[in-house]
């Protein structure tokens, strides 16, 4: 009879699960099976199977156009906002099929929050309003609850001490790094189960980047985080697992330390060592 350990080991051999040297068993937040996504005729994701471990940071790396952002967006159905999109396969969030006909995409996006490459606070809103806008849109009117969630989210985003006296000022009055942490606080306010980050530091200076990286490290105790990055060193610093995508395919997936010291696949080695091209 097949044991759960055997199943994971067998899947590890095919690069679809953390290999056996990872601590087992571990809870999975996402189980992605045979996922393919097309934009019109173009296939952006090609038959990807990948498990996302809970309370860990998974980094997705790969050259531009390899499908990493599409894969990230498929985890909260954000890619559906692009016209002429079609998908095949399954994405399970804690065992529940995100693409089942009965699932509301808006609920999915509340459960799976997202932070984008460029910070995007709502320009007409104050810092405080930016943080709780998601709750208000979900019908929360209790001011005490809103205030509590505002402080909690800003504290978790390591921004509270810097803005607590300026909550009435516009969100856009903050620096780039602070704006990005404000967006993280906005994502946290609706208490998601997962946070997706699409190159969250690519527009930030080294100090702001360090603060976000520190924040990612702290947040993984409570959240599952999936981040897309072009920065190899950042992937090495912040992530527990790394997935390498190329031409829409998952080439290799495993613990970050192994991927960056001894990748199994030649394509991974060539990419991370700068030999592509």
């Amino acid at each position, binding site marked *: 009879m097949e044991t759960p350990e055997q199943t994971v080991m067998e899947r590890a051999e095919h690069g679809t699960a953390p290999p056996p040297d990872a601590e087992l068993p571990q809870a999975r937040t996402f189980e992605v099976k045979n996922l393919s996504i097309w934009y019109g005729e173009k296939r952006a994701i090609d038959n990807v199977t990948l498990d996302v471990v809970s309370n860990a940071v998974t980094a997705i790396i790969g050259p531009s156009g390899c499908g990493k952002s599409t894969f990230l967006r498929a985890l909260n159905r954000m890619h559906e906002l692009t016209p002429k999109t079609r998908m095949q396969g399954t994405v399970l969030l804690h065992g529940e099929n995100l693409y089942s006909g009965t699932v509301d995409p808006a609920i999915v996006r509340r459960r799976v929050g997202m932070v984008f490459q460029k910070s995007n606070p709502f320009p007409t809103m104050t810092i405080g309003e930016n943080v709780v806008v998601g709750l208000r849109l979900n019908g929360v009117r209790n001011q005490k609850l809103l205030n509590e969630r505002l402080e909690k989210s800003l504290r978790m985003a390591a921004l509270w001490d810097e803005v607590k006296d300026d909550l009435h000022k516009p969100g856009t009055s903050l620096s780039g790094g602070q704006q990005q942490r404000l967006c993280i606080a906005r994502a946290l306010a609706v208490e998601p189960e997962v946070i997706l980050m699409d190159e969250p530091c690519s527009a930030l200076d080294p100090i702001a980047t360090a603060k976000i990286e520190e924040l990612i490290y702290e947040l993984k105790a409570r959240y599952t985080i999936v981040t897309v990055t072009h920065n190899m060193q950042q992937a090495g610093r912040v992530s527990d697992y790394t997935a390498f995508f190329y031409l829409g395919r998952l080439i290799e997936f495993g613990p970050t330390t192994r991927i960056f010291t001894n990748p199994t696949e030649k394509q991974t080695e060539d990419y*991370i060592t*700068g030999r592509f091209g």
Partner: protein
Amino acid sequence: MIAPKHILGTFDEALASLRNNVLMMSSLTERSLERAMKGLFDRDDDLCANAIADDEEIDQLEIQIDKDGVAILLRFQPVASDLRRVVSAMKLSSNLERMADQATTIARRARKLNQHPPLAEVELMRPLYEQAMSMFKDSVDAFVREDVDLGCGVVARDEKLDDLTHSASRKLIDRMAQDPDQLRGYLNLIFVSRCLERVGDHATNIAEDAVYAAAAEDIRHQTVAATT
């Protein structure tokens, strides 16, 4: 297998320069050991002096390799096989420098021995020297060719060198009791045998680093079944 070139040509140049310096350092170390041992066997003080003089250049190369290695880590932030090669090269240079120190010590002991009538027991050093040198050459070859099997084989051969050293030491101690007039000479030969044993230890370290560079496998501090 030859790895394809990096997109960044300067990275390839920096790695090649590091590798060339390691190869240069290993050649000089080999030459220094050969000169020291030939100086001992042939009672040639000039060769001993040359072996001692080689040490300065080897020390400078160690400094250069460390400097270049740190510069590569800083400038190119290597990962995967590149990272392993840089780390191993830096560790290799440290082992080579210590080997060259052993060559210097052997040369100094040889010069002392050469001041006295020849001892037949000098020949006891020959099997040790052959074993240590073959381990040394193979360990550097394992690094250059990224040959895991060759590297593992070197590690397994260290035990034989240890046995040869102990056997030679026992014979020399016996000779001390039989011929106390030559006590100082036998003692110098025991020191030479210890130096050769240390050369084998450094060759083992180099072989272990070669295996790590080639296959990301850490084989240090493991019991390796003798394969030779």
